[in-house]
């Protein structure tokens, strides 16, 4: 693998389905360019896309910060959204509060957060109802010893 530390931020606009996936796609390319193994890139892409979509679906806006070092990629997505009243309920596969028009697009199946958890090494969610949600996850970039 090549490249030193790298960090940055993407700004996400709520309901902007036209650009949905843009941040995850460019982060995926960033990891590929650094020579990160394909299976790790795949896990990362799933988590990043689901996180980005959550912000687009539910929030007014969000900031997706990333930092990539030799050993780890870390993403923090802070959104200005409705907040999650019950995080463990939100983590339940199949549970969703998405409105009908979102479901008709094929989102809101209640698999987003479980998909993220399945693919990352660590994940934390903090949320304040009426203010927003911060989702943080990281994935080790080198195969575990």
């Amino acid at each position, binding site marked *: 693998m090549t490249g030193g530390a790298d960090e940055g931020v993407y700004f996400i606009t709520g309901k902007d*389905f*036209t650009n949905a*996936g843009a941040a995850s796609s460019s982060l995926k390319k960033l990891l590929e360019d650094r020579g990160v193994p394909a299976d790790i890139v795949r896990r990362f892409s*799933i988590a990043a896309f*689901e996180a980005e*979509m959550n912000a687009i679906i539910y929030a007014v806006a969000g900031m997706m910060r990333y930092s990539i070092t030799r050993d780890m990629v870390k993403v923090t997505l802070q959104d200005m959204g409705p907040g999650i009243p019950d995080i463990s309920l939100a983590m339940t596969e199949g549970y969703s509060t998405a409105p009908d028009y979102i479901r008709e697009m*094929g*989102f809101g199946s209640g698999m987003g957060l479980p*998909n993220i958890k399945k693919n990352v090494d660590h994940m934390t969610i903090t949320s304040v109802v009426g203010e927003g949600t911060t989702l943080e996850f990281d994935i080790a970039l080198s195969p575990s010893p």
Partner: protein
Amino acid sequence: MKLKDIIDTLELQVMTPGLNLDTEVTGGYASDLLSDVIGHAKEGFVWITFQVHLNIIAVASLKGLAAIILVNSRALDEATLKRAIAEGIPIITSPLPAFEVVGRLYTLGLRCP
């Protein structure tokens, strides 16, 4: 199995001109839920769906899918087609419903390994 052989055999229509159809197809996945596809489809799969909005391209690109097969002659708007061509994701349509398309792909030997 090559994508172009599937297209020829099942008489599918390619909506995205100029893209490479020589890709090896490794399997198939049928779903209209994007998170389901993100979670379960694998690289090189064809994805059979009724969804036609822009985000299907992002999902296919992220997963490295071989193509998207739209059923029931679903039509895409110009912006989605342009994005598909830019991302190199072939979009293929069939007049048949999903059940028939999946059945024929299965008969050709395609599986969801």
